[in-house]
């Protein structure tokens, strides 16, 4: 299987997952700040 195809599909698979984790991590950070303010 051509290396270009393999690399392309690694990008296709990992990027949406990475974006989802990035959004979740940023949200958790904001929620922690909210919790700290409310204490």
């Amino acid at each position, binding site marked *: *299987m*051509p290396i*270009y*195809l393999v*690399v*392309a*599909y690694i*990008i*296709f*698979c990992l*990027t*949406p997952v990475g*974006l*989802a984790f990035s*959004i*979740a991590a*940023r*949200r958790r950070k*904001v*929620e922690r*700040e*909210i919790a700290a*303010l*409310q204490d």
Partner: protein
Amino acid sequence: MAKKSLLNSVLAGLSVVMFLVALGMVFFYAPREATMGEVQRIFYFHVATAWVGFFGFFITFLGGAVYLATNNRRWDILAFSSAEIGLVFITMTLVTGMLWAKPAWGTYWTWEPRLTISAVQWLLYVAYIMLRGSVLSPEREARFAAVYGIAAFVTVPLSWFAIRWWRTIHPQIVSSEGMALTAKMIYTLLFSLATFTLVYVTLLRQRIQLEKTRDQLAALRLQHDQAAQND
């Protein structure tokens, strides 16, 4: 809240299942293309990510226009969230396009009309995201971003028509003569388009919730600052 969370989980689960099925169709269902061989399989997700990028920018255009008309923050949140996701998907399109171009054209990049417009489009939306972190007041930032998002959208139809108006080496899958694909290729492409649209919706909902949580934090900080001033 629990209902929203359940819907998010269902969407995320369905996205994963459809993504795996789409991958299976790309590698085991779609036939090997005669001219380019195995590397042509990049096509299915490459087109799907481009579609999501364009659709994301359209939602930014729409959200910006409605925000200017209504001044309602929720439309600004929609526009901003969609631009970020659109940019990530267009970046995937550009990078995987380069990976496909190397074996197909012998070079990663060439300054032909479609690719040049895509590069300009990418830079414009990077600038949009940078603008959102600017030091302007939130209202001014939102209004400026709305106008910018509407203007930047011109790159989407320009990119679509570039391969029809000008001489270009970029392939044209939909033309006046129909689609140059077999039935199995078309089904795989359509399923990939549906899958990435669902992934976009799933990510967009999460991104909107992040922005709403940030608004809550900003409001809380303001309350705290005011309370501190009164003390």
